[in-house]
């Protein structure tokens, strides 16, 4: 048996899902957090049944890719748990009525029940049950209230089998229902709502956005540096380095195992960035360079997501994003891309048209460096001076803008306008923020570390057998003449296909000038997606568009690298 969780976007389906299945999924306070579907299972009586967290949809007449996914899933389900936002009953009931017109048993979870009290909304649940003819359970998914009752009611799910209605008939029926069951009393604005009002004003909004983004960046930087300087570097240098040196002695420098595990050791000291062994650089990059930035980045992102600030940023950015052939909501995948491009490209599903998705995915892959790349850029370029980091970021930003304007001119079709629901501000719960942070850190550890170690191993084996020389000599003319990089940088660019952080790390032992380091960082960020991004681009854009997108990336990287080589 298959139970589907369906409802409008941002009503808490994923929270209900986590409660039912104990499978934890990313939940946030903006419509469109769930763009794919998540599967789990729960115990019902003595059987295990499948539960599916379906992306949010306002209607069964789909208007976005995510809504199409929802509609397709509906045909495969046996029971629907329709999660409804109790504070916005009228709008939510539209989907409920559409579901009741289908011949599928339905249970309604009247979620965010606690919020109705603050908002002076009174709902007569018994009356609603009578009128709709299906079980109605008030729930507060974030605290777990009503979940037990919801599970018990699943066996009573029914299909009242109402005939199909026209749009007008549905709204008339809904008006009739809400008149009978809902009663709203006056109440005062809460403090959060007053902040919300201020941030909706154009000037206040811009000032707030600049403050929030600058504050976020500084916080990530400060926490990241603090973790590196006070925790991870001391750990590696004082505890790990002596062990490595002892191992180095027993393996013997020059042996193949030494080459692969430890790499280069110069005059009795380990340089964790440059040695390039599995146990040195292979562990140092993920744990001591990238992880210290992953932690604060996802902490700050989680807070932005859960407060409900991101949709407001989308409204503010709308005018600029239109110049790039997108609308304001594309800022959400873009922000996710600063963490990792893979979920960012998946999140482009919240955009309505193929054209927008192509532009957004291409811009993200080219100009939005992931947290791992950024951590390496901070480490390598930052060591030469903060102004050079600013040049790298400034260049990437300029590429993002210029390429967006060009794509908007060149790509056929037009982009639809922004139309989004803005959720109320909420105070993020500490538990929820920390849980999400942990899920993302665990995701990084599980997915990135095997590839990082694999990349370091591949590099060492290819070097040991001299295979790189052939590649280097083949591509060297382009790299040296256009980009002004030494020919050894070719191998770094090639490894960029596996992991950008490792590839950037490969620039470290090359003794590059600052100019070359800047060009190398920009080219590695823009040139080609890493393998994980490549796979998701292929899946989301399909072969032809993915090839186009990659062609644009390579061209853009060569042009930008060439320009930097001329002007710096």
């Amino acid at each position, binding site marked *: 048996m298959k139970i589907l969780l369906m409802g409008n976007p941002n009503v808490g389906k994923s929270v209900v899902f986590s409660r039912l299945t104990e499978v934890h999924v990313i939940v946030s306070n903006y419509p469109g957090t769930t763009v794919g579907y998540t599967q789990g299972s729960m115990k019902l009586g003595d059987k295990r049944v499948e539960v599916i967290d379906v992306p949010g949809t*306002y*209607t069964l*007449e789909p*208007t976005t890719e995510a809504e199409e996914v929802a509609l397709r899933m509906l045909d495969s389900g046996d029971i629907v748990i329709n999660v409804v936002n109790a*504070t*916005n009953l*009228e*709008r939510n009931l*539209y989907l409920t009525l559409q579901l009741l017109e289908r011949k599928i048993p339905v249970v309604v979870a009247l979620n965010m029940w606690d919020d109705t009290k603050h*908002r002076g*909304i009174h709902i007569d649940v018994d009356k609603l049950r009578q009128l709709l003819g299906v079980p109605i359970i008030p729930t507060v998914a974030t605290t777990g209230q009503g979940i037990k009752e919801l599970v018990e009611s699943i066996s009573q799910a029914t299909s009242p089998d109402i005939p199909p209605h026209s*749009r007008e008939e549905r*709204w008339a029926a809904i008006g009739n229902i809400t008149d009978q069951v809902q009663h709203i009393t006056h109440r005062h604005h809460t403090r959060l709502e007053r902040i919300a*009002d201020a941030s*909706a*004003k*154009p000037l206040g*909004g811009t000032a707030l956005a600049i403050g929030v983004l600058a504050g976020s960046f500084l916080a990530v930087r400060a926490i990241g540096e603090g973790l590196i300087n006070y925790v991870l570097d001391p750990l590696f240098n004082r505890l790990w380095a002596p062990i490595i040196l002892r191992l180095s002695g027993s393996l013997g420098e020059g042996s193949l195992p030494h080459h692969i595990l430890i790499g280069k050791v110069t005059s009795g000291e380990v340089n964790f960035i440059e040695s390039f062994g599995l146990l040195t650089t292979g562990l140092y990059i993920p744990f001591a360079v990238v992880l210290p930035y992953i932690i604060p980045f996802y902490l700050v992102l989680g807070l932005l997501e859960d407060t409900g600030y991101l*949709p407001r940023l*989308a*409204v*503010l950015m*709308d*005018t600029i994003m239109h110049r790039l052939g997108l*609308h*304001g909501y594309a800022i959400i995948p873009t922000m996710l891309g600063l963490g990792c491009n893979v979920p960012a490209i998946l999140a482009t599903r919240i955009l309505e048209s193929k054209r927008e998705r192509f532009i957004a995915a291409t811009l993200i892959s080219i100009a939005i460096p992931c947290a791992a790349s950024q951590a390496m850029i901070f480490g390598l370029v930052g060591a030469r001076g903060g102004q050079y980091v600013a040049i790298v970021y400034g260049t990437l930003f300029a590429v993002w803008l210029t390429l967006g304007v060009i794509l908007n001119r060149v790509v056929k079709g037009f982009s*639809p*306008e*922004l*139309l*989004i*629901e*803005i*959720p*109320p501000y909420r105070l993020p719960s500490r538990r929820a923020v920390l849980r999400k942070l942990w899920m993302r850190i665990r995701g990084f550890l599980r997915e990135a570390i095997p590839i990082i170690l694999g990349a370091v191993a591949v590099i060492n084996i290819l070097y040991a057998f001299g295979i790189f020389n052939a590649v280097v000599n083949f591509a060297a003319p382009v790299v040296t003449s256009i980009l002004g990089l030494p020919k050894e940088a070719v191998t770094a660019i090639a490894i960029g296909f596996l992991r950008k952080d490792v590839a950037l790390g490969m620039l470290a032992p090359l003794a590059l000038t600052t100019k070359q380091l800047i060009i190398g960082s920009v080219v590695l960020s823009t040139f080609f997606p890493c393998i994980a991004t490549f796979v998701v681009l292929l899946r989301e854009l399909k072969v032809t568009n993915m090839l186009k997108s990659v062609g644009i990336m390579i061209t853009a990287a060569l042009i930008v690298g060439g320009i930097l080589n001329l002007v710096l």
Partner: protein
Amino acid sequence: MPKRKQITLRQMQPGQSGIVFQIQGGHGLINRLNALGIRPGQKIIKTGSTLMRGPVTIKVGNAQVAIGFGMANKIIVELV
């Protein structure tokens, strides 16, 4: 002549409220707006606008919705 003044959503001042009278757009636009509860006969309050032809925000029911500038131009509202 209609009894009440009809203007577009874009022309409304923040703080003004009105009833949606008509949506001058194709099936796609009507469908998308309808899904968010924006339909003829629905009461709305304009809550804000942004600079440089940016989106306008309205309150519909208990939800706040941001609508692109061009779309806002196609929504005719009767002031109340």
